[in-house]
């Protein structure tokens, strides 16, 4: 019996009447509908069976009964299985049980929908106002259907985000929203005791663009890839491929093998670009500008390569639902091979010159340490997780595109610090080059001349769920699509790798020196834009109870009545 059937039987037995339905369009996906009373129990069962929590998706259901729905997705990495559980509630009673008390990584996902959908989560440890801007009026939930996508309530004055009190004995040093060590707007209030960091509070949501709402109200299926790739300035193909895969899975489309190989090549070129860029940034953040200059010089070659392949310096504009738009023919393959040979040589030279440099060791070894257990608890993904001994990689664990046919090594380090991340990312550059060579060989030998995309003849059926993962350079990105009418998805949810990784930053910062703040935050390669398609705030990691908004309001009212 496969793992999927095992799980299904287990849940059916345990949940009895609370189990509603299960569907599985694809071999490696399982979508389960349950009654909302059983949400916590089901999640518990799945976690006990060895799942890794991925994300929560909230939406307002229009089909199969009206109401508000909450989906939680889980990954079984050893069995290449993704499971999504969905529960529905009525609009009169928008409450679910919170998973956060036993899955801390679910905290942000749930807080997102408190703000965007007006949901309530019972027992959520920290339901502070989170996602929306500080002056957003109460009672307007942007993801609700009746709210137009372009609503712009007038700004209110004299509202500011209420930062928590610093723990006793420490003072606050603000970083951001605009700061030389942050490349995108985000605010970190760092608690320090002397030079030592004692925790931090994070306030994001400064580059929220409402892309998911736009997709659900304005855009059509084949327009979304071009918006999806612009979620991120670096992981363009990651998001467009991921979205396309989710739609293809939901509608049962089978795309040509050739297109899958081309997608794989684009994803790996993107990885080369991202790793080299990060290497440069990391060098810059520790004040080692030789690395910065040289890594970015090498990266420029990749950008020119992308320009020849896609028509622009970024890896944008290649993907549509059903395949790809541009071919990689033999002349282009030659160009790729030539560029890769140069890049490999250059990276080797650079690696040799810096890898034994003591100044790098001193700035990265033991910095931003997080144990394997903590990393697991926070559901870390990507090089940040692999540097902490977690052997996960969506390319191997949940093969998509053409990854089932290529051989590569998943690089894992166990130092648990920034140094580990650096080593993992440099080694992955060579693996990416290996993967591209294998793809080019297969393209040339047996896939010449086959079509690039299939034509979509029938309309995409409504009400189907699709779940897709792509291992972005920074870690696993997850897309969830629920198909809808009007030639557009009813719900499309994006979870970028920075989303789980950023949640662990306060833990990574703990007891480090303030001077290491830039490189620790930089080590997860935070992509604020990806994360902030909806906003996020983190609770501080230093101990101490945090008042919820309601509690705070109540307290301040009491104080006022006393005076």
């Amino acid at each position: 019996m496969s793992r999927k059937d095992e799980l299904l039987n287990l849940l059916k037995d345990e949940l009895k009447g609370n189990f509603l339905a299960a569907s599985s369009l694809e071999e490696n996906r399982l979508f389960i509908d349950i009654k909302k009373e059983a949400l916590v129990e089901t999640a518990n069962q799945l976690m006990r069976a060895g799942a890794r929590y991925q994300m929560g998706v909230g939406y307002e259901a229009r089909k199969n009964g009206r109401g508000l729905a909450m989906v939680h997705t889980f990954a079984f990495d050893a069995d290449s299985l993704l499971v999504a559980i969905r529960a529905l509630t009525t609009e009169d009673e928008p409450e679910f049980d919170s998973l956060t008390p036993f899955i801390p990584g679910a905290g942000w996902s749930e807080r997102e929908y408190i703000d965007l959908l007006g949901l309530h989560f019972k027992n959520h440890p920290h339901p502070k106002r989170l996602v929306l801007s500080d002056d957003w009026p109460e009672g307007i939930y942007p993801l609700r259907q009746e709210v137009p996508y372009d609503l712009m309530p007038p700004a209110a004055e004299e509202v500011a985000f209420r930062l928590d009190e610093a723990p006793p004995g420490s003072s606050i040093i603000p970083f951001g929203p605009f700061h030389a060590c942050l490349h995108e707007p985000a605010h970190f209030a760092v608690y320090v005791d002397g030079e030592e960091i004692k925790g931090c509070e994070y306030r994001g949501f400064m580059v929220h663009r409402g892309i998911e709402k736009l997709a659900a109200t304005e855009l059509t299926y084949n327009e979304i890839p071009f918006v999806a790739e612009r979620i991120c300035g670096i992981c363009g193909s990651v998001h467009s491929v991921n979205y396309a895969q989710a739609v293809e899975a939901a509608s049962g489309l089978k795309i040509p093998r050739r297109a899958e190989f081309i997608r794989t090549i684009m994803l790996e070129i993107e990885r080369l670009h991202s790793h080299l860029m990060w290497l440069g940034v990391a060098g810059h953040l520790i004040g080692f500008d030789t690395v910065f200059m040289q890594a970015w010089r090498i990266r420029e070659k990749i950008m020119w390569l992308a320009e020849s392949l896609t028509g622009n310096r970024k890896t944008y504009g290649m993907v549509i639902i059903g395949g790809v738009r541009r071919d990689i023919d033999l002349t282009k393959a030659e160009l790729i091979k030539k560029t890769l040979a140069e890049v490999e040589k250059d990276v080797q030279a650079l690696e040799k010159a810096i890898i034994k440099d003591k100044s790098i060791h001193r700035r990265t070894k033991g910095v931003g340490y997080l144990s394997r257990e903590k990393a697991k608890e926070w559901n870390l993904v990507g090089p940040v997780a692999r540097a902490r001994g977690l052997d996960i990689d969506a390319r191997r664990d949940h093969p998509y595109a053409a990854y089932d046919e290529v051989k590569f090594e998943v690089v894992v380090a166990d130092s648990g610090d920034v140094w580990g991340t650096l080593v993992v990312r440099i080694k992955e550059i060579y693996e990416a080059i290996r993967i591209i060579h294998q793809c080019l060989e297969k393209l040339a030998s047996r896939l010449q001349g086959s079509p690039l995309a299939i034509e979509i003849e029938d309309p995409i059926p409504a009400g189907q769920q699709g779940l897709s993962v792509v291992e972005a350079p920074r870690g696993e990105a997850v897309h969830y699509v629920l198909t809808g009418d009007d030639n557009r998805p009813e719900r499309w949810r994006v979870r970028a790798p920075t989303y789980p990784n950023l949640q662990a930053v306060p833990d990574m910062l703990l007891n480090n020196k303030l001077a290491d703040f830039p490189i620790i935050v930089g080590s997860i390669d935070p992509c604020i834009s990806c994360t902030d398609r909806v906003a996020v705030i983190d609770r501080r990691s230093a101990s101490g109870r945090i008042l919820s908004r309601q509690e705070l309001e109540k307290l301040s009212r009491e104080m006022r009545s006393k005076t």
Partner: protein
Amino acid sequence: MWLWNKIKQLAIPSRTGVVTLRYPYKPRPAPAGFRGQPVWDHTKCIGCAGCASNCPARTIFLRDICQEIRILLYDSSRCTYCGRCADLCPEKAITMSENFELATDHRQDITETMELFMMTCQRCGRCFDLEIKNALDKLQMLGYRYDSLEARKVIRQSTPELEPELLEKTATYRRPEKLEKSPCGKD
């Protein structure tokens, strides 16, 4: 060891030399297949609206000012140069040019307008025959928008201070209906 590393680091730039291009003094031609600014060939366009209804950035606008004249306006300021319009045009009236030096103070410099004279079909009185499966059908007219060219500021701008005019304008924006019962259980 440390010194040896520093020597190696010094060797890299001396080997590679200067890599910075002399741009803009020496122009850098775009490679083949470059996606620059799209240009329209008015002799080929049949005014089918395929480009307008499939532009992800919604930056091609169409308006029929009378039965015979259709205006197509392309506003480059929001174009993402994805090339989707050029892909989908059944008449290949759009080419992605090599022009990427588009920075300007005047939006008009990068805006293109076409006035298309539309023939009326003698049989049905409309511009196109929609009953027969043809290239136009494949474009799927879904999402076709009858846009107002004057009010093409679809993306609303926010300003640091709220000016009175803007405030007045925002008052006319569509608002969500007041929920009868607050879904939070709060009032």
